[in-house]
């Protein structure tokens, strides 16, 4: 049904006669574009253009536009252009195409590269203060809501709280156990391998115990929770924002912070210490297994050495960290979620920002706590 498009050009004196034929449709654009550009030189030379469209079998907007461009080029150079032989079927289309692309807006002037870069720096500086403001605002409204809940305990959404606890706590246990178990095992293996060189392999128990309980246990669990639950919070709240569900809540006189955010943050604050405890135990278990099978240190000796090596303080230091990290993750995730705008791209961007920022803040917080506990002698 479709025939290959052709363009026959016959020049006689000052008159150029163009006879397009075949299917001038979008499907053939790969052939059409070179055909059309091949005649531009001839087009500029001749005084009169005669465009005979009798041979055109099929025509669509693209083909009509290419032909229109030829006659427009001739006219704008002050030449004559006659278009003849238009089939009735296509007259309307050709009339329509004559109207388009008449007044192209002048392209915006290219901005100065230096100005753009400086502007970018300024914008990200302002963006950073916005981030701090958003964080503080969320922290503040969270505490206001908590005071409200303390005055009226019935306004705490218990169902939602337990559902979120189930999601971020209970359902996270398998992956947390698996990862921390492996981390504990790896630390023990590396410790034994390197300590053995100077006969200190029994000190691997001290290293695994202190490292896991004080720092690594809580840090790894917090990073995993930020990636697993923080991202989910941002995406959920973001898509609720996009679909105006949060606006709907507000119009019903409900506070989105109380209904949506408080249960989520409380769930995280409750779940993270529990997960940290479980994760630390799994890591010690992994370290113990490696010490037994790879280092030849039986469980009884491992436990006895562990008893000497770690104090309750190490454990406390790790556990005190956990709720604060949960608070940071929750606040970052929820405030990023509320900052989602209309597009799908913005949702993705906010989710990424939420995870990256919470992991960064968790590590910074861990460092600050480490300095703090060291200076008070814990």
């Amino acid at each position: 049904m479709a025939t290959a498009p052709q363009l026959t050009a016959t020049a006689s004196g000052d008159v150029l006669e163009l006879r397009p034929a075949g299917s001038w449709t979008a499907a053939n654009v790969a052939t059409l574009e070179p055909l059309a550009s091949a005649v531009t030189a001839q087009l500029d030379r001749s005084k009169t253009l005669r465009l005979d469209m009798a041979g055109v079998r099929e025509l669509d907007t693209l083909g009509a536009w290419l032909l229109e461009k030829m006659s427009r080029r001739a006219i704008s150079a002050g030449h004559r252009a006659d278009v003849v032989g238009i089939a009735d079927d296509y007259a309307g289309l050709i009339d329509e195409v004559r109207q388009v692309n008449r007044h192209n807006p002048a392209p915006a002037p290219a901005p100065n590269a230096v100005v753009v870069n400086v502007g970018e720096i300024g914008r990200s500086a302002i963006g950073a203060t916005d981030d701090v403001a958003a964080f503080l605002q969320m922290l503040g409204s969270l505490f206001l809501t908590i005071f409200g809940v303390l005055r009226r305990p019935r306004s705490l959404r218990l169902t939602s709280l337990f559902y979120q606890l189930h999601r971020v706590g209970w359902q996270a246990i398998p992956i947390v156990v698996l990862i921390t178990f492996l981390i504990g095992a790896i630390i023990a293996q590396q410790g034994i391998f390197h300590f053995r060189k100077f006969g200190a392999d029994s000190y691997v128990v001290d290293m695994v115990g202190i490292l896991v309980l004080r720092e690594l246990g809580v840090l790894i669990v917090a990073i995993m929770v930020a990636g697993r639950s923080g991202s989910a919070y941002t995406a959920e709240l973001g898509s609720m924002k996009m679909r105006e569900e949060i606006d709907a809540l507000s119009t019903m006189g409900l506070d989105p912070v109380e209904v949506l955010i408080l249960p989520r943050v409380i769930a995280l604050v409750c779940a993270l210490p529990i997960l940290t405890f479980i994760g630390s135990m799994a890591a010690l278990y992994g370290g113990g297994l490696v010490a037994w099978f790879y280092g030849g240190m039986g469980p009884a000796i491992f436990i006895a050495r562990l008893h000497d090596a770690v104090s309750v303080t190490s454990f406390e230091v790790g556990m005190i960290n956990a709720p604060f990290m949960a608070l940071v993750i929750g606040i970052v995730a929820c405030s990023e979620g509320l900052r989602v705008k209309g597009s799908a791209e913005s949702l993705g961007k906010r989710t990424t920002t939420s995870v990256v920022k919470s992991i960064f803040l968790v590590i910074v917080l861990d460092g600050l706590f480490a300095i703090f506990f060291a200076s008070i002698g814990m």
Partner: protein
Amino acid sequence: MPEVTPQFAIRVKELVVGFGTHVVIDHLSLDVRRGEILGLVGASGGGKSVLMRTIIGLIPRQSGEIEVMDSAIDGSRDRVTRNVAGRWGILFQQGALFSSLTVRQNIQFPLRENLVLSDALMDEIATAKLEMVGLKPEDGDKFPSELSGGMTKRVALARALALDPAIVFLDEPTSGLDPIAAGDFDVLIKTLQKTLGLTVFMVTHDLASLNTVCDRVAALADGKIVAIGPMRDLLQSEHPWVRAYFHGKRSLMLQPKAS
């Protein structure tokens, strides 16, 4: 010289579509003639959108045959279906514009994916389409989130028309528009249908557009087409649902015009 073209743009025979045990489309047959504007009416949740989505291959069917421009439609991933996909354009109810692309990029997307052409020509075609749907070339640099409801529909229509398809499917094109914008959109559909020689398959609840734009109207009830024909035939239909639809309180305003 026109080619020998098929008489029907879409032929649906004995189509059955259901989800689990719930049958939505029950042995439905429908022919859409080439170059006509067919309006499809039916109860909310009665399967209008399901029928449209089945024809374009988004929903699998249980039995029956669908032919679009003389080629059978099997399923969305089928190669034949994808070839036909270049011959139809779809205007989704919410526009379904790609939110991360500008208006111009949205219109260029089908061109860029399906054809080999220069960027300059692509820009010109996109601007041409924009102007054909009644927007200004400057609107091309906006993002979908910056558009009003009427503009979104127009841009979505421009994207649906990017490849100059033979058939356009419109899912409630005037829903959510004010009467003036809806009227303008009706006129636009009619004009474009004439200039581009389109076949239009339109799912709508808008009685005014049914009355002014559609050449024929099909009524879908109980999973079947219970009445089909020009608007005045449907107004005289005896089917209880069709009577209730066109002679209900909200439809009374139509009566003087239609008689």
